[in-house]
């Protein structure tokens, strides 16, 4: 909820004279205040923000951005995860340079529109997404959305460990060692018990998502063809077929998914962002989307030579993509591609399991913060670790159709998005909790356009499966 914002960093807030948009809020007396470990850590971070904001000039502005960036970049690069990068790789190998380049740019614009709403919600209410759904729409919808998220996240986590396994498989690392190593990294990142430190470590790791850029450059793309495709949205080899629709949905699911809403809003609340930080939060999201778009386009360009040389990549896993690319980009290029896949799975495994833990804590009314010591946040850390361990274990079962799972997880993410977006749309237009920060008309039009595109893509997928002949009526085959 919006509170009085102090004019300067040093102005104290008076608990007894608070004003709020919510009629249910009661004044708080200092006697009610119980200080927790989590509060102290968050206050420390906020003091640095206030001190930097009080200074004038370009460098302090830059410093302020450095302090406030994080959730937006993490969510966007986190969504460039194992299944997403595999979808982009499959797209490049199947369709080359053409329609899907501008299409992927469009999906990231959609992601920006949606995630900007979570920035405003998180900063204005200081609450996670699941907690707000629970409070505003009641326990039924609260639990419902949390269970939805948990199922989707678990399936996605399975695919992250597939990417980890496949990426390290290129270097001859055995699946069990790769998966256990990933679990160890995930656990070590949590041991900081500090949101700020955790965020910086994961941000550093997420930058390796850009490993796909040098691989793309090594393939010497035809830049004129790239420019032409971005402007004309052509060509689309094979036209509109069932396979095209599946790839279309997989690419949407590679950029816009429910866990992103939950993660970014909870991370903003955990980081302690306020309404004064919304501008920087938007910049953070836009920068994240730009970096993620570059990495996605680079992945498609990197595998485009497979399309040019008519190499079928229908059943490729990440390691096989890397091996197939070796004649075009050399060993080091292929190794970078495999490392990129490992990074994509690793970072996403951390962010997605964290979003589950946040949502569980928010709905089950348990402590939920990365600033908590293990003893105080036992349920938070346990949910996070148990989900990751279960998903990792599933990947090690022999004979599971991994590639199929990867594509379908993205499809399911697209299908689950409209119900999640409806909650978001209603919350961000709720004047009682958002005050003057409710969405302007143009933002609502954009959000509704995203919903229409997602539902339309879902229905197109349904038609392509249940009545493939009907595709011909809309120009397909």
């Amino acid at each position, binding site marked *: *909820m919006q*509170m009085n914002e102090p004019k300067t960093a*040093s102005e*104290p*807030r008076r*608990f007894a004279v608070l004003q*709020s948009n*919510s009629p*249910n*809020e*009661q004044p*708080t007396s*200092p006697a*009610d*205040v*119980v*200080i*927790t*470990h*989590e*509060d*102290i850590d*968050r*206050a*420390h971070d*906020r*003091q640095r923000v*206030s001190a930097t904001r009080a200074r004038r000039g370009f460098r302090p502005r830059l410093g302020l951005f450095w302090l406030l960036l994080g959730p937006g970049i993490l969510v966007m690069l986190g969504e460039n995860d194992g299944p997403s990068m595999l979808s982009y790789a499959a797209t490049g190998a199947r369709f080359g340079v053409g329609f899907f380049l501008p299409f992927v740019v469009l999906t990231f614009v959609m992601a920006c529109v949606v995630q900007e709403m979570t920035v405003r919600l998180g900063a204005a*209410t*200081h*609450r996670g997404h699941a907690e*707000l759904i629970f*409070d505003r*729409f*009641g326990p039924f919808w609260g639990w419902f959305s949390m269970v939805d998220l948990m199922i989707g996240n678990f399936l996605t986590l399975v695919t992250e460990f597939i990417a980890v396994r496949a990426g390290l498989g290129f270097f001859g690392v055995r699946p069990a060692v790769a998966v256990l190593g990933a679990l160890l990294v995930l656990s070590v990142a949590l041991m900081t018990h500090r949101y700020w430190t955790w965020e910086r470590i994961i941000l550093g790791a997420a930058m390796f998502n850009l490993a796909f850029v040098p691989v793309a450059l090594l393939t010497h793309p035809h830049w004129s063809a790239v420019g032409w495709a971005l402007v004309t949205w052509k060509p689309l080899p094979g036209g509109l077929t069932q396979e095209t629709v599946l790839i279309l949905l997989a690419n949407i699911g590679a950029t816009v998914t429910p866990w992103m809403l939950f993660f970014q809003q909870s991370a903003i609340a955990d980081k*302690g962002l*306020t309404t004064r930080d919304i501008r920087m939060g938007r910049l953070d999201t836009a920068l994240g989307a730009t970096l993620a778009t570059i990495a996605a386009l680079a992945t498609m360009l990197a595998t485009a030579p497979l399309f040019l040389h008519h190499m079928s990549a229908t059943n490729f896993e990440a390691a096989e993509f890397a091996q197939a690319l070796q004649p075009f980009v050399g060993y080091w290029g292929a190794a970078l591609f495999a490392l990129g896949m490992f990074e994509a799975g690793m970072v996403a495994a951390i962010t997605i399991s964290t979003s589950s833990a946040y949502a569980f804590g928010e709905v089950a*009314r*348990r*402590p939920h*913060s990365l600033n*908590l010591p293990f*003893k105080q946040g036992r349920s938070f850390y346990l949910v996070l670790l148990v989900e990751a361990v279960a998903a990792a274990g599933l990947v090690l079962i022999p004979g599971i159709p991994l590639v*199929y799972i990867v594509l*379908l997880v993205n499809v*399911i993410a697209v*299908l*689950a998005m*409209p*119900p999640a977006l*409806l909650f978001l749309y209603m919350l961000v237009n*709720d004047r*009682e*909790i958002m005050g003057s920060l409710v969405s302007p008309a143009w933002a609502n039009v954009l959000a509704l356009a995203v919903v229409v595109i997602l*539902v339309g893509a*879902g229905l197109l*997928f*349904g038609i392509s*499966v*249940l009545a493939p002949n009907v595709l011909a009526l809309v120009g397909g085959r």
Partner: protein
Amino acid sequence: MDQEFHSAPDAKVTRNELASVITALEPDQIISTKEHHHCSRRRLTRTEMLLFWGLRFYLVFMVGVVVYQIWTGVR
């Protein structure tokens, strides 16, 4: 205070830390005061309920389509 929901109070809070928390955080950011700033539950209109359930059925139906595709794929 609902102990189930909130983090445990820190046993060694100094006066400086207390001051810094109260100065730096907005009131509803402090864990123990969150309950004073809760959002009330809102009543859903008939249209909203229809939309919620409509999208829920859409999701269930489409997941069925996905399962059907897997089944045909396996066959």
